[in-house]
């Protein structure tokens, strides 16, 4: 309930942005779309972060959070937000329309891994992807690399198809994947390793009932992106504010809350592993 309440509050805060283009009209508010790549349902933290960035961008700033990736991507592609924090998979999918704004750095690298987690009580016998036959698997989002694309690739590699699972479902966020597995709704779940580790760091109870049974190779960390278009002073200011956060105590505290080191410029080549993986998945939408 608390998570949905927060999301509802954030949606209400973002409502004016839905009706007007970000670059048109007198409204100069800088809008940033958020997806479940981070634990974005902490309203107090987002308020503090928005205030921090506002001060440095010299324009009003507002976060626009959605439970799924597609709505945020739609907002970005229709210019209803100026930037968005999305997953590497949709970045690769829409690479021609998007440009990197900043890539978060976690554990000193702009990289992360995908985890396969199992329920301690319900499925202690799951050791890997091959053990998911006739089991229930929870995904995060159809546009999530760690929460869907990796799982598809690994299931395929394990010789399992969707029909070999007893059931699978999307939990609309990595955190929900952890909770679904912890509650026993699913035997296993495909989850963003950064999110799981951050939940563990924050002592969330769902982590106690889950175990990591598999870790993927490293992928480019979910980036903040903008539409590919001529640079704008407001966006440049935002980029600069993000890059300088580690040098500012207040920014450092915000990064600690995010369990990040900072933001780096990044490069499209960071997401090559995702791109290659997507190309192996017939339904991924990424062509070779």
């Amino acid at each position, binding site marked *: 309930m608390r998570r949905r309440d927060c999301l509802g509050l954030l949606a209400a805060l973002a409502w004016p942005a839905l009706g007007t283009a970000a670059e048109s009209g007198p409204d100069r508010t800088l809008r940033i779309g958020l997806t479940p790549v981070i634990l974005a349902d902490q309203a107090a933290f987002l308020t503090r972060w928005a205030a921090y960035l506002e001060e440095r961008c010299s324009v009003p700033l507002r976060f626009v959070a959605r439970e799924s990736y597609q709505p945020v991507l739609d907002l970005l592609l229709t210019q209803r937000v100026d930037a968005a924090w999305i997953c590497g998979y949709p970045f690769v999918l829409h690479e021609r329309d998007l440009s990197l704004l900043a890539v978060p750095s976690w554990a000193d690298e702009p990289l992360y891994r995908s985890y396969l987690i199992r329920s301690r009580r*319900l499925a202690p016998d799951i050791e890997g992807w091959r053990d998911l036959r006739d089991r229930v698997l*929870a995904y995060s989002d159809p546009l999530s690399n760690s929460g869907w694309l990796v799982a598809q690739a690994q299931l395929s590699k394990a010789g399992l198809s969707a029909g070999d699972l007893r059931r699978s479902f*999307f939990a609309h966020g990595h955190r929900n994947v952890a909770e679904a597995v912890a509650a026993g709704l699913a035997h296993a779940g495909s989850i963003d390793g950064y999110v799981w580790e951050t939940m563990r760091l924050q002592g969330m109870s769902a982590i106690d009932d889950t175990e990591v049974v598999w870790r993927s190779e490293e992928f480019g960390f979910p980036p903040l992106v903008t539409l590919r278009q001529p640079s704008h002073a407001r966006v440049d200011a935002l980029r600069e504010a993000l890059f300088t956060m580690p040098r500012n105590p207040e920014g450092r505290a915000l990064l600690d809350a995010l369990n990040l080191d900072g933001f780096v410029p990044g490069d499209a080549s960071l997401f090559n592993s995702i791109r290659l993986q997507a190309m192996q998945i017939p339904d991924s939408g990424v062509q070779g």
Partner: protein
Amino acid sequence: MLRRLPYRVQIPLGLSLAVLIAAILVTAVSAQVFTRSARAETLAQVDRAVALVIAQVRPMLVADDTWRVFSLLRDTAGLLPGAPLGHARLAVVDVDGRVFAASDPLRLETGRPLLGEAWHGAPLPPEGVTRSWRASREDGSVLRLDPIASDDGQTLGYVLTEIDAAVFGADWPALAGNALAGIVLAVALLLPAGWWVGQRMTRPVERLAMLIGRIGRDEPGKLRAQLPHTADPELARIGDAVAQLMDELERRREAEERALSAERLAAVGRMTAAVAHEINNPLAGLLTATRTLRLRGDANDVRERTVDLIDRGLQQIRSTVTALLPQVRVEERALDPDDLDDVLTLVQGTAERLDIRIERSLEVESALRVPSAPLRQVMLNMLLNAIKAAGEHGRVETALHADAEFVEFSVANDGQPVDAERLRTLIAAEGGRDPQGFGLWVCQELASHLHGSFVPDPSATDRTRLVFRVPNREDPASPS
């Protein structure tokens, strides 16, 4: 035990016990009613929860959104009694009879075949059920299956609801705690009130009892004024009865006073008649003597005899009057041994004229507390009677003896012996007959008044010895 207590304690205590028993009974009945109503309320809550799930879950089922169905079931089940302890659970079953999602996935595993299978020892209906199915198990648990239908009537799935028996069982420790608190509260509030009401109820009764206890000692009029006025009909009847009793006692007392007054008047009348008789007897002779003097007074011998006759008649009248004087005199002091000497002096002239020797004996061992006036009269009457009975040259013996218990005065003469029967004849005054011995009758009356006796000594066979004996105390009416 209770009946041995005073009435003023019995009623307040009884009311207090009644309050306590009533509180316990009300609590027990309330617990039973609460248990029954709690089951009905739980089932009503289940109805509302199922209706809520059916209304909300349709689009989620259509979207095949397991997570949102789980969220809905988890949140809704949290509203059911017993859910926090795992005694209530909800599940959505798909059209194939498998668990789509459940509020407690560890018990109702996702994807598990359910419909048509045995569940907790009882078979569930197969898929295709179009109406609500309910089962109440022997242990009190409830299991129900409600179909989820689309607007056009197609079955989209089912809501399975299971409530364990523990939810319907009374929480006796909690109930007992509440009941105890209720009893303590009721007793704390009502017990003093019951005691106060009981005291208030018994106060008129207690007052009536006190007034009844004072009847005979205090004035009835004063007691009647203190009778409690109460609106209670029973107590009012008791109060009226007590008032009536007081009235009757007062009337009786007044009647007794009137009777006593009448008796006194009668006694005075009898006394007056006796005095008149005693005086009238010599008067006839005296009148005859005066006529003799008037006719034949010139002769010396006649004159002398007539004057002697007149003298004796007057002496008799004087004796009679002398016998009456002490009775009318009011003297409060106690008898003194010198009173005997005074009386002897009074009769000394008469005794000397008849040449009668009077002997005196005095033996006083204790203080004399009897009143002097009646005793002086008794002594005078008995001496005059003895002198008369002894005759010329006779002998009279007097003795006054007193100890702590009695005062005894006796007079003996050597005249004709008088026994008890003769004495009764002499002093008989009842029936309107004239008393032959007025002085002895007075002694008899005084002996009766002073709670004593006046009898002849039966051992004195050759003479007459009359004994006047009364208790040696000031108030003759009160026992020693």
